[in-house]
C-alpha cells in the first residue's frame, strides 16, 4: 500500500481511538443493572454460578448459536483443506521419546481435569467450553506425540461424535416448545438438563476444537490451480 493511504488509515483509527477514549471517560450511570436480576433468578436456574447460569440458561440461545458457529467453522476448515474428517495431517517428524512418555503420563490427567472442569462449572468458573478446551489440547498432544492412530475413528462415527452434543442441545431446545418457550427448562430439572447439555457439548466441542487444528491443510502440497 502506498504511503498516503497508509497514513490516512492510521490517522482515521487514531482519531477513532481518541474519540472513543473521550466517550468512555464520560459515560453516565447505566439505567439498567442486570446483576440484581441475575441474582434473583439464580435460584431457579439450576446452577449456583452466575456466569454458567447466564451462559446455559438465561442466554442459552446464544450458546446454541455459538455452538453452531464452531461446528460451521470446522466444516469450513474441512472445505478449505478438501479432507474428510478422520484422516489427519502427517506429522512432520518422528516425535522424541521424551515427548511420547510425557504425553502418556499427562493425557489421563488432562481427561481428569476436563471432567472436573465440567462438573465444577455449576458452582465455580468452569463448564463445557473450558473442559472441551482441555480435552482438545489433550487430543492434540497425543497427536503431536505420534500416539494417535492415523485413522482414529471411522468417518461416520467421527461425524456423529462431532454432532452429538449439538443435536442433544437442539433436542433439549425444542422439547419445551409444546407448552413453553424455546430452551425453557422445567425448574426442578434445570440443573440436570444443564449438566446433560454440557456433557454432550464437552465431547463434541473437544472433537471440534481438535479438528480445527488437526484438519488444517497440509503444508506445501503441490497443487496445480
Amino acid at each position, binding site marked *: 500500500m502506498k504511503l498516503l493511504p497508509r497514513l490516512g488509515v492510521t490517522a482515521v483509527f487514531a482519531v477513532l481511538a481518541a474519540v472513543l477514549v473521550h466517550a468512555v471517560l464520560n*459515560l453516565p450511570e447505566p439505567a439498567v443493572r442486570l446483576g440484581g436480576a441475575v441474582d434473583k433468578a439464580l435460584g431457579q436456574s439450576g446452577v449456583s454460578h452466575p456466569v454458567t447460569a447466564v451462559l446455559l440458561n438465561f442466554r442459552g440461545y446464544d450458546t446454541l448459536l455459538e455452538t453452531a458457529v464452531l461446528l460451521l467453522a470446522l466444516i469450513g476448515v474441512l472445505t*478449505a483443506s478438501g479432507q474428510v474428517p478422520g484422516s489427519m495431517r502427517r506429522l512432520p517428524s518422528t516425535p522424541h521419546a521424551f515427548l511420547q512418555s510425557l504425553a502418556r503420563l499427562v493425557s489421563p490427567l488432562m481427561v481428569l481435569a476436563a471432567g472436573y472442569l465440567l462438573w465444577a462449572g455449576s458452582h465455580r468458573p468452569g463448564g463445557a467450553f473450558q473442559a472441551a478446551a482441555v480435552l482438545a489440547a489433550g487430543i492434540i498432544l497425543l497427536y503431536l506425540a505420534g500416539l494417535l492412530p492415523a485413522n482414529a475413528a471411522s468417518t461416520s462415527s467421527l461425524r456423529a461424535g462431532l454432532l452429538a452434543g449439538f443435536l442433544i442441545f437442539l433436542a433439549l431446545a425444542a422439547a419445551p416448545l409444546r407448552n413453553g418457550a424455546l430452551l425453557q427448562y422445567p425448574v426442578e430439572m434445570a440443573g440436570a438438563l444443564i449438566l446433560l447439555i454440557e456433557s454432550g457439548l464437552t465431547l463434541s466441542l473437544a472433537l471440534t476444537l481438535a479438528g480445527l487444528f488437526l484438519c488444517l491443510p497440509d503444508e506445501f502440497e503441490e497443487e496445480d490451480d
Partner: protein
Amino acid sequence: MIDIIPLLILTPLLWASLAFLFGPVWGARQAIAGITLQVVLAVMLAENVSGGALRTHAAGGWEAPLGITLSADGLGATMLLLTQVVALPLAFYAEAYFSRHRDGSDTFWPLAGYLLAGMNALFLSADVFNLYVTLELVGLAAVGLVASGGSAHSVAAALRYLFATLLGSGAYLLGVALLYAAYGTVSLAELTSLVSEAAPTATLLAALLMLTGMAIKTALFPFHFWLPPAHGGAPAPVSALLSALVIKASFYLAVRLWLTLFLPLVTPVSAQLFGVLGAAAICWGSVIALRQTRLKMLIAYSTVAQIGYLFLFFPLATDTAPDAVQSALQGVTLHAFSHGFAKAAMFAAAGAVILSTGHDRIGQLGGISAHMPLTVFTLAIAGVSLMGLPPSAGFLAKWLLIDSAIASGQWWWILVMIAGGLLTAAYVFKVLRHAFLRAEQSVTFRPLPRMAEWPAFLLALASLALGGRATEVLNLLGAP
C-alpha cells in the same frame, strides 16, 4: 401461534446438521424437505403479523433484559418470506448443478443450512448481542461457501470476504459494548426506549460503528471491493444465495437500527451521506459491469450497483413527510424482493451456461439462444426486473422510490435512478445481444437436466409477477 418463531430457526439447524452427518446425497433431500417446511412456516408467520401485529418469543422463558427476545414484525416477516421463498428453487437448482459439477458439493448443504439458520435467526432477533452471533453465523457460512469453489481465485476471494466481514462485525461488537456500558442492557426494545436525543457520546459512537459495520458487510461503496471476486468466483448456486439473500441481511439490520434504536440521533446530513454513497454505487457499479468480459463478474458488479438503490432509503426516510417515509420503506423492501428473485435467477442462469458450455465469457455466448432458450428467456426476464421496466416488481420498487423522492422534495435522487436504469439496460442488453449471435464452431453444448434451468426461470417469472401482486407484500410490511 408463538411456536413458529423458534421453529424457523431450529429447522434449518437440524437439517444442516443431518446433512453433515449423512453426506451430500441425503443432504440435498433433507435440505429440500426442510426448506419447504420453512416456506410454510414463513407464510404462516406472515399471516400472523400482517396488519401491523408483533409476535414475540422469550427464549428460555426469560423476559428481557435478562433473557433474549425473538420478535417478528412486518419487516422481519417480509425478509423471512423472501429468504425461504428464494432458497427453495435454489435448492432444486443446486442439486442439479452439483450433480454435474463436483467442486464444492460435499459441504454445500450443511453450510447452506447454517447460512439459512443464521439469516432466520438474524431477522427474528431483538437482542443486539445475539444479533452479533447471528451476523457471524451468516458471515462464516458465506465465507465457507465462497471457498468451496476450490481454486486459488475462490480461496483468495473468500479470505478477502472474511476480513471484510470480520471488520464489519468487529465494529458492530464494539458498538454493542458501548451500548451495554451506557445503558446496562442489550435488549433492542429496552434500548430503544432508553436512547433519546440527549444521548452520551458513547451512543453516537456506537451508532457510527454499528452502521459502518453494516455498510462494510453490505458492500456499500467504497467498501465494495470484496464483493465482485466473492460473488463472481463462487459456484453459481452460492453466488445466487449470496447476492440475492445474504447481502440483504446486513442491510436489514442497518434499517432496523436506523428506524428503532438510533432514530433520535440520525441527522439529515448522515442520511444524505448514505444516499451519496448509494448513488456512487449505482453509477460506479453499473459502469464497471459494462466493462466485464465474464458473465458472472458482470452480474456481481450489477449487485454492487443494485445495493446502491437500497441505500437511497436513508435520505428518503429521514426527517421527511410520513408518506415519503412509507414509500421509501415500501420501495426498498420491494426492491430487495425483486432484486432477490432476479439476481438469483441470473446467477442460476449463468451457472446453467457454464454447465452447458464450460465457460461464461460474454463474447462467446453466441448460440445459447438456440440451444438453451429457456435460460436466455430467464436472463431477459430477470433483466427486465433489474432495469425497472413495467410490469415487474423492479419497476414498482423504483416507482415507489421516485414517489418518495418527490414527496420529500429530494428530486436529485430521481436523476440518479434514471441514470442507473439506463446503465442497467446497457449491460443487460450487452449480454442478450451476444446471446442471440450465432454459435461459434468450436463450442459444444451439453444437454442440461431440467432442474438446471426451470428454477431459474421460475425465479425470474416471480420477479415479474410480483409487480402485480405487490399489494400483499406491502400490506404485510404494514406501518414501520
